[in-house]
Protein backbone atom coordinates (compact mmCIF):
# COMPACT_ATOMS: atom_id res chain seq x y z
CA UNK A 1 0.00 0.00 0.00
CA UNK A 2 1.64 3.25 -1.12
CA UNK A 3 2.01 6.14 1.31
CA UNK A 4 -1.40 7.78 1.80
CA UNK A 5 -1.87 11.17 0.18
CA UNK A 6 -5.57 11.80 0.63
CA UNK A 7 -7.33 10.56 3.73
CA UNK A 8 -11.09 10.92 3.79
CA UNK A 9 -12.28 10.03 7.26
CA UNK A 10 -15.99 9.59 7.95
CA UNK A 11 -16.96 12.67 6.01
CA UNK A 12 -20.58 13.77 6.12
CA UNK A 13 -22.44 16.55 4.35
CA UNK A 14 -26.01 17.76 4.15
CA UNK A 15 -27.66 20.10 1.69
CA UNK A 16 -30.43 21.45 3.86
CA UNK A 17 -32.47 18.46 4.92
CA UNK A 18 -30.87 16.01 2.50
CA UNK A 19 -27.90 14.01 3.67
CA UNK A 20 -25.64 13.93 0.62
CA UNK A 21 -22.59 12.22 2.15
CA UNK A 22 -22.90 9.69 4.95
CA UNK A 23 -19.70 8.89 6.86
CA UNK A 24 -17.60 8.35 3.74
CA UNK A 25 -14.11 7.00 4.29
CA UNK A 26 -11.47 6.46 1.66
CA UNK A 27 -7.71 6.59 1.44
CA UNK A 28 -5.84 7.39 -1.75
CA UNK A 29 -2.16 6.56 -1.84
CA UNK A 30 0.59 8.44 -3.64
CA UNK A 31 0.57 7.59 -7.30
CA UNK A 32 -2.76 5.81 -7.01
CA UNK A 33 -5.68 6.37 -9.32
CA UNK A 34 -9.04 5.90 -7.65
CA UNK A 35 -12.24 6.21 -9.64
CA UNK A 36 -15.68 6.94 -8.20
CA UNK A 37 -18.67 5.58 -10.08
CA UNK A 38 -22.33 5.48 -9.28
CA UNK A 39 -25.79 6.67 -10.29
CA UNK A 40 -26.64 10.39 -10.47
CA UNK A 41 -27.10 11.93 -7.09
CA UNK A 42 -24.99 9.36 -5.26
CA UNK A 43 -22.61 12.04 -4.01
CA UNK A 44 -19.52 11.20 -6.03
CA UNK A 45 -19.11 14.68 -7.48
CA UNK A 46 -19.87 16.27 -4.12
CA UNK A 47 -17.19 14.15 -2.48
CA UNK A 48 -14.68 15.13 -5.12
CA UNK A 49 -15.48 18.81 -4.69
CA UNK A 50 -15.03 18.48 -0.93
CA UNK A 51 -11.45 17.33 -1.46
CA UNK A 52 -10.44 20.75 -2.76
CA UNK A 53 -13.02 22.48 -0.60
CA UNK A 54 -15.16 23.81 -3.42
CA UNK A 55 -17.83 22.29 -1.20
CA UNK A 56 -17.70 22.41 2.56
CA UNK A 57 -18.27 19.30 4.64
CA UNK A 58 -20.09 19.14 7.96
CA UNK A 59 -18.47 16.23 9.76
CA UNK A 60 -15.38 14.10 9.57
CA UNK A 61 -12.12 15.19 8.03
CA UNK A 62 -10.37 15.22 4.70
CA UNK A 63 -6.63 15.61 4.76
CA UNK A 64 -4.07 15.90 2.02
CA UNK A 65 -0.49 15.06 3.02
CA UNK A 66 -1.51 15.32 6.66
CA UNK A 67 -3.12 18.76 6.40
CA UNK A 68 -6.86 18.97 6.97
CA UNK A 69 -8.71 20.48 4.06
CA UNK A 70 -10.62 23.70 4.63
CA UNK A 71 -10.89 23.44 8.39
CA UNK A 72 -8.70 23.18 11.41
CA UNK A 73 -9.70 20.64 14.01
CA UNK A 74 -8.81 21.63 17.54
CA UNK A 75 -7.61 19.28 20.26
CA UNK A 76 -11.12 19.38 21.69
CA UNK A 77 -12.64 18.40 18.36
CA UNK A 78 -13.80 21.91 17.51
CA UNK A 79 -13.98 22.78 13.82
CA UNK A 80 -12.76 26.17 12.63
CA UNK A 81 -12.73 27.32 9.05
CA UNK A 82 -9.30 28.02 7.66
CA UNK A 83 -8.61 31.53 6.34
CA UNK A 84 -8.89 32.08 2.57
CA UNK A 85 -5.13 32.22 2.24
CA UNK A 86 -4.61 28.70 3.56
CA UNK A 87 -7.41 27.24 1.50
CA UNK A 88 -6.02 28.90 -1.62
CA UNK A 89 -2.53 27.57 -0.86
CA UNK A 90 -3.91 24.05 -0.53
CA UNK A 91 -5.88 24.38 -3.77
CA UNK A 92 -2.75 25.52 -5.58
CA UNK A 93 -1.29 22.05 -4.98
CA UNK A 94 -4.46 20.24 -6.03
CA UNK A 95 -5.55 20.37 -9.65
CA UNK A 96 -9.13 20.07 -10.81
CA UNK A 97 -10.47 19.42 -14.27
CA UNK A 98 -14.16 20.15 -14.78
CA UNK A 99 -16.84 18.67 -16.98
CA UNK A 100 -17.27 22.03 -18.71
CA UNK A 101 -13.51 22.68 -19.17
CA UNK A 102 -13.92 26.18 -17.68
CA UNK A 103 -11.11 27.75 -19.64
CA UNK A 104 -10.91 31.53 -19.31
CA UNK A 105 -12.46 32.70 -22.59
CA UNK A 106 -10.90 36.14 -22.59
CA UNK A 107 -7.34 34.75 -22.42
CA UNK A 108 -5.37 32.87 -25.05
CA UNK A 109 -4.55 29.23 -24.48
CA UNK A 110 -1.03 30.18 -23.42
CA UNK A 111 -2.28 32.88 -21.06
CA UNK A 112 -4.73 30.39 -19.56
CA UNK A 113 -1.75 28.27 -18.60
CA UNK A 114 0.44 31.08 -17.30
CA UNK A 115 -2.24 32.98 -15.38
CA UNK A 116 -2.08 30.97 -12.17
CA UNK A 117 1.70 30.33 -12.02
CA UNK A 118 2.34 34.03 -12.48
CA UNK A 119 -0.40 35.41 -10.25
CA UNK A 120 -0.35 32.77 -7.52
CA UNK A 121 3.25 31.53 -7.45
CA UNK A 122 4.84 34.74 -8.67
CA UNK A 123 6.71 32.96 -11.44
CA UNK A 124 8.34 35.32 -13.96
CA UNK A 125 6.26 35.45 -17.14
CA UNK A 126 9.04 34.20 -19.42
CA UNK A 127 9.60 31.11 -17.31
CA UNK A 128 5.88 30.47 -17.01
CA UNK A 129 5.52 30.69 -20.78
CA UNK A 130 8.34 28.20 -21.37
CA UNK A 131 6.80 25.71 -18.99
CA UNK A 132 3.40 26.29 -20.53
CA UNK A 133 4.69 25.58 -24.03
CA UNK A 134 6.29 22.38 -22.79
CA UNK A 135 2.97 21.32 -21.27
CA UNK A 136 1.10 22.12 -24.46
CA UNK A 137 3.59 19.93 -26.31
CA UNK A 138 2.84 17.18 -23.87
CA UNK A 139 -0.90 17.29 -24.54
CA UNK A 140 -0.30 17.75 -28.25
CA UNK A 141 -1.59 21.30 -28.64
CA UNK A 142 1.47 23.53 -28.91
CA UNK A 143 0.28 25.03 -32.20
CA UNK A 144 -2.84 26.41 -30.47
CA UNK A 145 -0.95 28.51 -27.96
CA UNK A 146 -1.96 31.87 -29.40
CA UNK A 147 -5.58 30.97 -30.04
CA UNK A 148 -8.58 31.64 -27.86
CA UNK A 149 -10.54 28.76 -26.30
CA UNK A 150 -13.57 29.48 -28.48
CA UNK A 151 -11.57 28.36 -31.52
CA UNK A 152 -10.85 24.93 -30.06
CA UNK A 153 -12.94 21.80 -30.06
CA UNK A 154 -14.25 20.38 -26.79
CA UNK A 155 -11.59 17.72 -26.66
CA UNK A 156 -8.87 20.27 -27.30
CA UNK A 157 -10.25 22.61 -24.64
CA UNK A 158 -10.28 19.80 -22.13
CA UNK A 159 -6.68 18.91 -22.92
CA UNK A 160 -5.76 22.55 -22.40
CA UNK A 161 -7.62 22.43 -19.11
CA UNK A 162 -5.53 19.45 -18.06
CA UNK A 163 -2.36 21.28 -19.09
CA UNK A 164 -3.54 24.27 -17.08
CA UNK A 165 -3.74 22.21 -13.90
CA UNK A 166 -0.34 20.65 -14.62
CA UNK A 167 1.17 24.13 -14.84
CA UNK A 168 0.73 24.46 -11.08
CA UNK A 169 2.64 21.18 -10.45
CA UNK A 170 -0.10 19.62 -8.36
CA UNK A 171 0.46 16.58 -6.16
CA UNK A 172 -3.11 15.43 -6.80
CA UNK A 173 -5.53 15.94 -9.67
CA UNK A 174 -9.29 15.68 -9.38
CA UNK A 175 -11.18 14.91 -12.57
CA UNK A 176 -14.93 15.51 -12.53
CA UNK A 177 -16.64 13.76 -15.45
CA UNK A 178 -14.11 15.25 -17.80
CA UNK A 179 -15.47 13.50 -20.88
CA UNK A 180 -19.20 13.73 -20.21
CA UNK A 181 -19.66 16.93 -22.21
CA UNK A 182 -17.64 15.76 -25.18
CA UNK A 183 -18.76 14.41 -28.52
CA UNK A 184 -17.94 10.67 -28.57
CA UNK A 185 -15.16 10.95 -31.14
CA UNK A 186 -13.32 13.47 -28.94
CA UNK A 187 -13.39 11.38 -25.78
CA UNK A 188 -10.41 9.26 -26.76
CA UNK A 189 -7.89 12.08 -27.05
CA UNK A 190 -8.69 13.25 -23.51
CA UNK A 191 -8.58 9.77 -22.01
CA UNK A 192 -5.19 9.21 -23.63
CA UNK A 193 -3.82 12.25 -21.82
CA UNK A 194 -5.25 11.04 -18.51
CA UNK A 195 -3.73 7.63 -19.13
CA UNK A 196 -0.32 9.19 -19.67
CA UNK A 197 -0.65 11.14 -16.43
CA UNK A 198 -1.42 7.91 -14.59
CA UNK A 199 1.55 6.22 -16.21
CA UNK A 200 3.74 9.08 -14.99
CA UNK A 201 2.64 8.39 -11.43
CA UNK A 202 0.20 11.28 -10.85
CA UNK A 203 -2.19 10.69 -7.98
CA UNK A 204 -5.71 11.12 -9.28
CA UNK A 205 -9.30 10.89 -8.13
CA UNK A 206 -11.67 10.48 -11.02
CA UNK A 207 -15.43 10.69 -11.28
CA UNK A 208 -16.61 9.21 -14.55
CA UNK A 209 -19.33 7.38 -16.45
CA UNK A 210 -16.81 5.75 -18.77
CA UNK A 211 -16.66 2.25 -17.28
CA UNK A 212 -14.16 0.95 -19.79
CA UNK A 213 -11.82 3.78 -18.98
CA UNK A 214 -12.31 3.32 -15.24
CA UNK A 215 -11.30 -0.30 -15.73
CA UNK A 216 -8.14 0.60 -17.63
CA UNK A 217 -6.73 3.44 -15.60
CA UNK A 218 -7.73 2.82 -11.99
CA UNK A 219 -5.92 0.99 -9.24
CA UNK A 220 -9.18 0.85 -7.32
CA UNK A 221 -12.78 1.70 -8.11
CA UNK A 222 -15.32 2.89 -5.56
CA UNK A 223 -19.01 2.42 -6.24
CA UNK A 224 -21.14 4.98 -4.44
CA UNK A 225 -24.85 4.98 -3.83
CA UNK A 226 -26.96 7.38 -1.77
CA UNK A 227 -23.97 9.09 -0.18
CA UNK A 228 -21.93 6.05 0.80
CA UNK A 229 -19.15 3.97 -0.68
CA UNK A 230 -20.84 0.65 -1.10
CA UNK A 231 -18.07 -1.33 -2.71
CA UNK A 232 -14.38 -0.58 -3.11
CA UNK A 233 -12.10 -2.90 -5.06
CA UNK A 234 -9.63 -3.16 -7.91
CA UNK A 235 -11.46 -2.88 -11.25
CA UNK A 236 -11.07 -6.50 -12.18
CA UNK A 237 -12.88 -7.54 -9.00
CA UNK A 238 -15.47 -4.77 -8.96
CA UNK A 239 -16.53 -5.13 -12.58
CA UNK A 240 -15.84 -8.84 -12.93
CA UNK A 241 -17.34 -10.01 -9.68
CA UNK A 242 -19.67 -7.37 -8.25
CA UNK A 243 -20.80 -8.33 -4.78
CA UNK A 244 -23.29 -5.61 -3.97
CA UNK A 245 -26.85 -5.80 -5.37
CA UNK A 246 -27.07 -2.13 -6.18
CA UNK A 247 -23.75 -2.31 -7.99
CA UNK A 248 -24.94 -5.28 -10.00
CA UNK A 249 -28.11 -3.40 -10.94
CA UNK A 250 -26.09 -0.33 -11.86
CA UNK A 251 -23.69 -2.29 -14.05
CA UNK A 252 -26.58 -4.19 -15.57
CA UNK A 253 -28.35 -0.96 -16.57
CA UNK A 254 -25.10 0.40 -17.98
CA UNK A 255 -24.45 -2.69 -20.09
CA UNK A 256 -28.03 -2.75 -21.33
CA UNK A 257 -27.81 0.89 -22.37
CA UNK A 258 -24.56 0.31 -24.22
CA UNK A 259 -25.59 -2.82 -26.02
CA UNK A 260 -26.90 -0.63 -28.82
Amino acid sequence: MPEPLVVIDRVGKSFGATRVLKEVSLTVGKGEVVTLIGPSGCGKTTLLRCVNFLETYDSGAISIDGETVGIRIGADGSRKARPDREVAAMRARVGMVFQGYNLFPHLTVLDNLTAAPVKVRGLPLKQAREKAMALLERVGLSEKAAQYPAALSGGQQQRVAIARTLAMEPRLILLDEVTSALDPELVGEVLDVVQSLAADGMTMMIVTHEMQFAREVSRRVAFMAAGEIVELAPPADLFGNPKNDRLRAFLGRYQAAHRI
Partner: protein
Amino acid sequence: MDIAFLLRILPALLEGLEITVALTAIALVGAAIGGFVVVAGRRSRFAAVRAVTIAYIDIMRNTPILAQIFILYFGLPEIGLYPEAFACGVIALVLQNSAYAGEIYRAGIESVKRTQTEAALSLGMMPRRALFDIVLPQALRRVLPVLGNQAVVILKDSSIASTISVNELTQSGKLLLDRSAAPYETFFMMAALYLAMAAIVLGVMKLVALRFPVRT
Protein backbone atom coordinates in the same frame (compact mmCIF):
# COMPACT_ATOMS: atom_id res chain seq x y z
CA MET B 1 -32.29 77.68 -43.19
CA ASP B 2 -29.92 80.57 -43.00
CA ILE B 3 -26.42 79.08 -43.29
CA ALA B 4 -24.68 82.37 -42.58
CA PHE B 5 -26.64 82.68 -39.42
CA LEU B 6 -25.75 79.14 -38.50
CA LEU B 7 -22.09 79.99 -38.77
CA ARG B 8 -22.49 83.16 -36.74
CA ILE B 9 -24.04 81.44 -33.77
CA LEU B 10 -21.62 78.55 -33.87
CA PRO B 11 -18.88 80.14 -31.76
CA ALA B 12 -21.27 80.92 -28.93
CA LEU B 13 -22.61 77.41 -29.03
CA LEU B 14 -19.13 75.94 -29.15
CA GLU B 15 -18.28 77.73 -25.92
CA GLY B 16 -21.23 76.01 -24.36
CA LEU B 17 -20.15 72.76 -25.95
CA GLU B 18 -16.80 72.97 -24.18
CA ILE B 19 -18.55 73.12 -20.83
CA THR B 20 -20.82 70.25 -21.80
CA VAL B 21 -17.82 68.16 -22.76
CA ALA B 22 -16.10 69.00 -19.49
CA LEU B 23 -19.20 68.20 -17.45
CA THR B 24 -19.78 64.95 -19.28
CA ALA B 25 -16.18 63.79 -19.21
CA ILE B 26 -15.76 64.39 -15.49
CA ALA B 27 -19.13 62.84 -14.74
CA LEU B 28 -18.29 59.80 -16.88
CA VAL B 29 -15.10 59.14 -14.98
CA GLY B 30 -16.83 59.82 -11.68
CA ALA B 31 -19.72 57.51 -12.43
CA ALA B 32 -17.46 54.79 -13.79
CA ILE B 33 -15.50 54.79 -10.54
CA GLY B 34 -18.56 55.37 -8.40
CA GLY B 35 -20.16 52.38 -10.03
CA PHE B 36 -17.42 50.18 -8.64
CA VAL B 37 -18.03 51.53 -5.16
CA VAL B 38 -21.74 50.84 -5.56
CA VAL B 39 -21.35 47.30 -6.84
CA ALA B 40 -18.84 46.53 -4.10
CA GLY B 41 -21.32 47.77 -1.55
CA ARG B 42 -24.15 45.89 -3.18
CA ARG B 43 -22.19 42.63 -3.00
CA SER B 44 -20.65 43.19 0.41
CA ARG B 45 -20.65 40.46 3.04
CA PHE B 46 -22.03 42.88 5.56
CA ALA B 47 -25.81 43.12 5.51
CA ALA B 48 -25.72 46.72 6.74
CA VAL B 49 -23.51 47.84 3.84
CA ARG B 50 -25.75 46.04 1.38
CA ALA B 51 -28.85 47.63 2.87
CA VAL B 52 -27.39 51.13 2.65
CA THR B 53 -26.29 50.55 -0.94
CA ILE B 54 -29.67 49.20 -1.97
CA ALA B 55 -31.37 52.19 -0.39
CA TYR B 56 -29.00 54.51 -2.23
CA ILE B 57 -29.71 52.83 -5.58
CA ASP B 58 -33.41 52.95 -4.83
CA ILE B 59 -33.36 56.66 -4.10
CA MET B 60 -31.33 57.47 -7.21
CA ARG B 61 -33.62 55.35 -9.31
CA ASN B 62 -36.77 57.00 -8.07
CA THR B 63 -35.86 60.68 -7.97
CA PRO B 64 -35.26 62.92 -10.98
CA ILE B 65 -31.86 64.45 -11.46
CA LEU B 66 -33.48 67.88 -11.59
CA ALA B 67 -34.62 67.54 -8.01
CA GLN B 68 -31.19 66.36 -6.97
CA ILE B 69 -29.43 69.26 -8.61
CA PHE B 70 -31.81 71.73 -6.96
CA ILE B 71 -31.19 70.13 -3.58
CA LEU B 72 -27.48 70.55 -4.11
CA TYR B 73 -27.50 74.06 -5.53
CA PHE B 74 -30.31 75.67 -3.56
CA GLY B 75 -30.42 73.45 -0.51
CA LEU B 76 -26.78 73.12 0.51
CA PRO B 77 -26.29 76.84 1.15
CA GLU B 78 -28.77 76.44 3.97
CA ILE B 79 -26.33 74.20 5.79
CA GLY B 80 -23.37 76.39 5.05
CA LEU B 81 -22.02 74.85 1.86
CA TYR B 82 -21.89 76.97 -1.28
CA PRO B 83 -20.93 74.72 -4.17
CA GLU B 84 -20.49 76.21 -7.58
CA ALA B 85 -23.13 75.45 -10.16
CA PHE B 86 -20.72 73.41 -12.27
CA ALA B 87 -19.76 71.34 -9.24
CA CYS B 88 -23.41 70.75 -8.44
CA GLY B 89 -23.94 69.52 -11.96
CA VAL B 90 -21.04 67.11 -11.73
CA ILE B 91 -22.02 65.82 -8.30
CA ALA B 92 -25.64 65.24 -9.31
CA LEU B 93 -24.61 63.45 -12.49
CA VAL B 94 -22.10 61.28 -10.64
CA LEU B 95 -24.48 60.40 -7.82
CA GLN B 96 -27.27 59.39 -10.18
CA ASN B 97 -25.18 57.50 -12.67
CA SER B 98 -22.96 55.70 -10.19
CA ALA B 99 -26.07 53.88 -9.10
CA TYR B 100 -26.92 52.87 -12.66
CA ALA B 101 -23.30 52.01 -13.46
CA GLY B 102 -23.08 49.87 -10.35
CA GLU B 103 -26.16 47.93 -11.33
CA ILE B 104 -24.78 47.45 -14.83
CA TYR B 105 -21.51 46.15 -13.42
CA ARG B 106 -23.47 43.85 -11.15
CA ALA B 107 -25.47 42.44 -14.04
CA GLY B 108 -22.22 41.81 -15.87
CA ILE B 109 -20.59 40.07 -12.93
CA GLU B 110 -23.61 37.90 -12.31
CA SER B 111 -23.72 36.90 -15.96
CA VAL B 112 -20.30 35.29 -15.71
CA LYS B 113 -20.87 31.68 -14.75
CA ARG B 114 -19.91 30.55 -11.28
CA THR B 115 -17.76 27.85 -12.84
CA GLN B 116 -15.25 30.48 -13.96
CA THR B 117 -14.73 31.50 -10.34
CA GLU B 118 -14.46 27.83 -9.35
CA ALA B 119 -11.80 27.21 -11.97
CA ALA B 120 -9.82 30.22 -10.74
CA LEU B 121 -10.16 29.17 -7.10
CA SER B 122 -9.15 25.61 -7.85
CA LEU B 123 -5.93 26.92 -9.39
CA GLY B 124 -5.10 28.47 -6.05
CA MET B 125 -6.28 32.04 -6.64
CA MET B 126 -7.70 33.99 -3.74
CA PRO B 127 -11.36 34.99 -4.14
CA ARG B 128 -10.54 38.67 -4.69
CA ARG B 129 -7.94 37.80 -7.31
CA ALA B 130 -10.43 35.54 -9.05
CA LEU B 131 -12.95 38.38 -9.12
CA PHE B 132 -10.58 41.04 -10.42
CA ASP B 133 -8.50 39.02 -12.88
CA ILE B 134 -10.96 36.49 -14.18
CA VAL B 135 -14.56 37.58 -13.58
CA LEU B 136 -14.36 41.35 -13.97
CA PRO B 137 -12.60 41.35 -17.38
CA GLN B 138 -15.32 39.09 -18.72
CA ALA B 139 -18.12 41.01 -16.99
CA LEU B 140 -17.04 44.38 -18.32
CA ARG B 141 -16.70 43.14 -21.87
CA ARG B 142 -20.25 41.86 -21.75
CA VAL B 143 -21.78 45.11 -20.56
CA LEU B 144 -19.85 47.49 -22.82
CA PRO B 145 -22.89 48.23 -25.02
CA VAL B 146 -25.04 49.02 -22.00
CA LEU B 147 -22.30 51.18 -20.52
CA GLY B 148 -22.14 53.00 -23.83
CA ASN B 149 -25.83 53.78 -23.59
CA GLN B 150 -25.41 54.99 -20.06
CA ALA B 151 -22.59 57.28 -21.21
CA VAL B 152 -24.98 58.85 -23.71
CA VAL B 153 -27.50 59.26 -20.90
CA ILE B 154 -24.89 61.19 -18.92
CA LEU B 155 -24.26 63.37 -21.95
CA LYS B 156 -27.95 64.16 -22.31
CA ASP B 157 -28.47 64.70 -18.61
CA SER B 158 -25.67 67.27 -18.61
CA SER B 159 -28.25 69.60 -20.15
CA ILE B 160 -29.96 69.69 -16.75
CA ALA B 161 -27.16 71.91 -15.54
CA SER B 162 -28.67 74.66 -17.66
CA THR B 163 -31.43 74.97 -15.09
CA ILE B 164 -28.92 76.31 -12.59
CA SER B 165 -27.32 78.53 -15.18
CA VAL B 166 -24.23 76.50 -15.94
CA ASN B 167 -23.11 77.83 -19.30
CA GLU B 168 -23.14 74.55 -21.15
CA LEU B 169 -24.56 73.90 -24.58
CA THR B 170 -28.24 73.98 -23.69
CA GLN B 171 -27.87 77.18 -21.72
CA SER B 172 -25.94 78.82 -24.55
CA GLY B 173 -28.65 77.74 -26.92
CA LYS B 174 -31.37 79.06 -24.61
CA LEU B 175 -29.71 82.47 -24.43
CA LEU B 176 -29.43 82.59 -28.21
CA LEU B 177 -33.04 81.57 -28.62
CA ASP B 178 -34.01 84.38 -26.27
CA ARG B 179 -32.13 86.98 -28.26
CA SER B 180 -32.36 85.87 -31.85
CA ALA B 181 -35.29 85.71 -34.18
CA ALA B 182 -34.27 82.42 -35.76
CA PRO B 183 -35.13 79.61 -33.42
CA TYR B 184 -34.89 76.89 -36.07
CA GLU B 185 -31.24 77.40 -36.85
CA THR B 186 -30.30 77.59 -33.20
CA PHE B 187 -32.30 74.53 -32.29
CA PHE B 188 -30.99 72.66 -35.29
CA MET B 189 -27.42 73.48 -34.36
CA MET B 190 -27.90 72.48 -30.73
CA ALA B 191 -29.47 69.20 -31.73
CA ALA B 192 -26.79 68.50 -34.31
CA LEU B 193 -24.03 69.14 -31.78
CA TYR B 194 -25.58 66.81 -29.23
CA LEU B 195 -26.07 64.14 -31.85
CA ALA B 196 -22.47 64.50 -32.94
CA MET B 197 -21.25 64.11 -29.38
CA ALA B 198 -23.48 61.10 -28.82
CA ALA B 199 -22.17 59.56 -32.00
CA ILE B 200 -18.59 60.10 -30.83
CA VAL B 201 -19.31 58.53 -27.45
CA LEU B 202 -20.92 55.50 -29.06
CA GLY B 203 -18.12 55.31 -31.60
CA VAL B 204 -15.49 55.24 -28.88
CA MET B 205 -17.41 52.50 -27.09
CA LYS B 206 -17.56 50.50 -30.32
CA LEU B 207 -13.79 50.80 -30.67
CA VAL B 208 -13.29 49.68 -27.09
CA ALA B 209 -15.60 46.74 -27.76
CA LEU B 210 -13.51 45.81 -30.78
CA ARG B 211 -10.35 45.86 -28.72
CA PHE B 212 -11.92 43.87 -25.88
CA PRO B 213 -14.42 41.52 -27.49
CA VAL B 214 -16.46 38.94 -25.68
CA ARG B 215 -14.97 35.67 -26.76
CA THR B 216 -17.29 32.80 -26.07
